[in-house]
Structures are given as C-alpha cells and as structure tokens.
C-alpha cells in the first residue's frame, strides 16, 4: 500500500503540472480565438508582418529623404528671406524706395528784383549750378536722401541746364525748386547757412531761399528706368 501511495504522489505532482499547462494552453487558445486569428493563419500573418516591416523600412527611408528636402526648403526660405531683407535695404540705399525721416526742405525761387541797366537778368535766376551746389552741400552735411522737385538724387542723377528749365533725372523741372533732404536737420541747416556759403551767395542775388527744419520729410523713390548698358559687375575674386 505504501508503494501505491508513493506512485500516486508522483503522478499527482505531474498532474498538477498537467493541470496548470492545460488551463494555460486553453486560455492561450481562447485568446487566439478572441483576437480572431486562427492559428493556421499565423504563418500568413507573420509573413504579412515581415512584408509590412520591409515596407515600413522603405517608408522610413522616404521620410528621411523628405525631411532632408524639407529642411533644405526651409533653409532656402531663410536665405530667401535674408536676401529679401538685404534687397529691401539695398533698394533703400540706392534710392528706389520712398523714404521718410527728419530733415530739411529748401525752397529756391527766382529773384523778383528787376535787372538793372547793364545787368544780365540771368544772374537773378536759379541755375542748375545753384541747385547742384545746394544738393552737394546737403550730401556733405550728411543727408541720406535728397530729392529735387520730387526727383530723387541717385547715382546716375544729373542736374543740368536745359534751356529755360533744369533737368534732373532727365525730367524737366521749373521754379520754385523744392529740395527735400533727410538727415540731421540742424546739421543740414547750418551747412546751408555757412558764412559765405551757398545760401549767402544766392541771397546776394536776391534769390529767395528758405530752409525749413521738419521732423518728417518725405523723399520719393526714383521712378525712372535703370539701364546699365556698359557697366558690368566684377566678381569679388576678380577685382583689381
């Protein structure tokens, strides 16, 4: 009887393991059934998983490429922005945009004095040279933008006599001449009023000259065409 009990004990031990395994396996099978994956399809599914894994790898590579492209585009946008900002600045410096700031307005008009006998009436008119001197004086005093009767002074601007009128930027202008200049108003004003300066000379001839210091002077941008037929840009490395 002792022998029997001994074998029953061992068998019972294995039976416990058997029971645990049975329940676990049944549960696992139920779980598989619940997830609606028939075990026969497991291989198909694992194959699909492998394939989609491979696809995912390809897509990930694509994402990487696209990200790189995007960052390049963003970078390009950034450079475009800086170029745009630079361009705006350069346009302002070149005098292509209307600018505003503190400055002076100089008004010159022909003399009302009648020419006496033996005197040339031309002496009592405002000449191109007078305006050129005023503009020159203003630039010398630190003017950042100057216009004459709405014609912005730029690198190619001329002020010359054109018969009875004056030509600035190839546009004919007549008296009264209004010269707008942006800069330090006091500096500009005192430069013009220098002793024996340009205004003194003009006033000696009876030419009406008025200087107004203003907190806000508008100087229009250059409106003409810009053609550089002969001047060519030299790359930085090739400059002498």
């Amino acid at each position: 009887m002792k022998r029997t009990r001994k074998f029953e004990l061992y068998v019972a031990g294995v039976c416990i393991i058997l029971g645990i395994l049975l329940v676990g396996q049944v549960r696992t099978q139920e779980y598989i059934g619940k997830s609606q994956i028939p075990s026969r399809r497991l291989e198909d599914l694992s194959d699909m998983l492998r394939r989609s894994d491979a696809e995912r790898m390809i897509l990930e590579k694509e994402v990487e490429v696209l990200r790189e492209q995007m960052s390049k585009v963003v970078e390009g946008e950034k450079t475009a922005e800086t170029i745009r900002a630079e361009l705006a600045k350069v346009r302002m410096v070149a005098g292509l945009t209307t600018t505003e700031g503190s400055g002076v307005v100089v008004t010159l008009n022909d003399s009302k004095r009648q020419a006496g006998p033996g005197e040339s009436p031309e002496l009592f008119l405002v000449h191109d040279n007078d305006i050129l001197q005023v503009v020159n004086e203003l630039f010398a005093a630190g003017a950042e933008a100057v216009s004459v009767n709405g014609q912005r002074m730029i690198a190619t601007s001329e002020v010359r006599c054109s018969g009875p009128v004056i030509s600035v930027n190839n546009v004919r202008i007549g008296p009264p001449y209004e010269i707008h200049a942006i800069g330090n108003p006091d500096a500009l004003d005192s430069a013009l009023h220098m002793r024996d300066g340009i205004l003194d000379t003009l006033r000696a001839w009876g030419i009406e000259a008025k200087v107004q210091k203003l907190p806000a002077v508008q100087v229009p941008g250059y409106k003409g065409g810009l053609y550089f037929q002969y001047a060519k840009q030299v790359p930085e490395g090739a400059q002498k």
Partner: protein
Amino acid sequence: MILPIVGLIAGIIIALLTPLRFPIEYSQYIAIGILAALDCVCGGIRAGVQGTFDSTVFISGFLVNTALATILTMVGDKLGVDLVLGATVAFSIRIFTNVGIIRRHILDKWFKKTGK
C-alpha cells in the same frame, strides 16, 4: 487513485487563480508539454497498477521525454519540418497503450472482485 485526480484539480485551480497565459509563439511547445505530461501520468499509473513503479525512472522519464519533445519541436521549427507530429504520434500511441493496459488491469481486478 484519488490523489492524481486531486492533483489535477489542484493544478487547474492554481492556474485558474493566477492570470497565467503563455505567449502565442510557445503554444506548440506547451501543447507538446501537455502531451508529455499526460503520457507520463498514464505511464506512471500503469507502472503503479502493475507494481513496477520506480520514482527515478518516472521522474527521469518525464523530464527527458519533455525535453526531447521540446528539442524536436524546436529543431522542426528551424528546419521547417513538422517533427512535432512525430512526437505527438509517439506520445499518443503510448498514451493509448498505457490506458489500454490500465483498463485491462482495472477490468481484471473488477472481475476478480465480482468473481469472488
């Protein structure tokens, strides 16, 4: 004869009380393990009723058979051959044989008792 049944029920209860679940990929191994255990139980009972039970043989048989079945399954998995079927068939035949012997033994006992 009651102790093994009690053990089985105890095992089932233990498993039911714990949230035991095997990973799906080990499902095949657990299945072959169940077969090995079942075969072992049948073999043990047969040896018991025949009076030839030896604990060393029983335990070593259980462990070695389970290990062999598992290794077979694993190798079959790697080779792409269902070697697990061989183990399944072997265990099944043994279970049937053992149950047959147990049945005859019990029947003999029964008839001896009723005969007397």
